[in-house]
């Protein structure tokens, strides 16, 4: 089955990111395809490069980067949600004078069109944090 994921809540304060990550692990192990993970609303904080949790805690941002690196899962951060909250794409940061390396490895920034494409092409669209 082709599954797309949407994450609406920030990591650590909410369980949504953890549940989504475990869901994705289980789906991949059972032979399903994860078409895309789309980060919306406060979910964009999952892509914050400079997140530094204590060393004895899980590193949620790093975990997403690893998922992209090892499994090739497409991680897309909504551009308008991200800009509103100060998470800028490099080119935007350069242009408006913001921080240019805000986005962690493996994430890319794009518009809601990529969410809709995922919803339309997937058999299931599962939202976490709503």
């Amino acid at each position, binding site marked *: 089955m082709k599954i797309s994921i949407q994450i609406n809540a920030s990591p650590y304060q909410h369980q949504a990111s953890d549940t989504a990550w475990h869901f994705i692990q289980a789906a991949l192990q059972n032979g399903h395809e994860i078409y895309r993970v789309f980060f919306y609303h406060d979910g964009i904080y999952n892509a914050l490069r400079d997140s530094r949790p204590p060393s004895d805690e899980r590193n949620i941002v790093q975990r997403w980067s690893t998922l992209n690196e090892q499994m090739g899962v497409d991680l897309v951060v909504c551009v308008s949600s991200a800009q*509103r909250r100060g998470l800028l794409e490099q080119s935007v940061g350069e242009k408006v004078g913001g921080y240019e390396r805000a986005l962690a490895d493996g994430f890319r920034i794009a518009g*809601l*069109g990529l969410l809709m*494409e995922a919803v339309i092409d997937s058999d299931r*669209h599962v939202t976490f944090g*709503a």
Partner: protein
Amino acid sequence: MPNVKTLVFIIDKPLHGDIRAQEFLDMAMMAAAFGQRVVVVFEGSGVYGLIKEQRADVLGLKNITPVLSALSVYDIHDILVEQESMLLKGVDESQLGIAVSVQSRSEIKQTIDSANHLFSF
């Protein structure tokens, strides 16, 4: 048209106070722009969002009501409000700021059952 899905967007929170409702409606409009059949359902505290003459500017917020009025421009014509929620919240149809279809919980359940995907926030 190939691959048209029915997407139901459930609004069960007031529209002002945080940014999510505004971002949520952006999703609905994008879905409609992609040629999908969009249904917006108001239930629970979401019905407060339909009351006319909201003064979001008092809090320095953007008023979302004009966005609701513009949904038809995006070919979103199915705007449903749950009758039971209106009763529960004491909201009367004459207080509403946009044209909606008031339906019972069981009617709305049928719509939700027929959806390909559900969205909430």
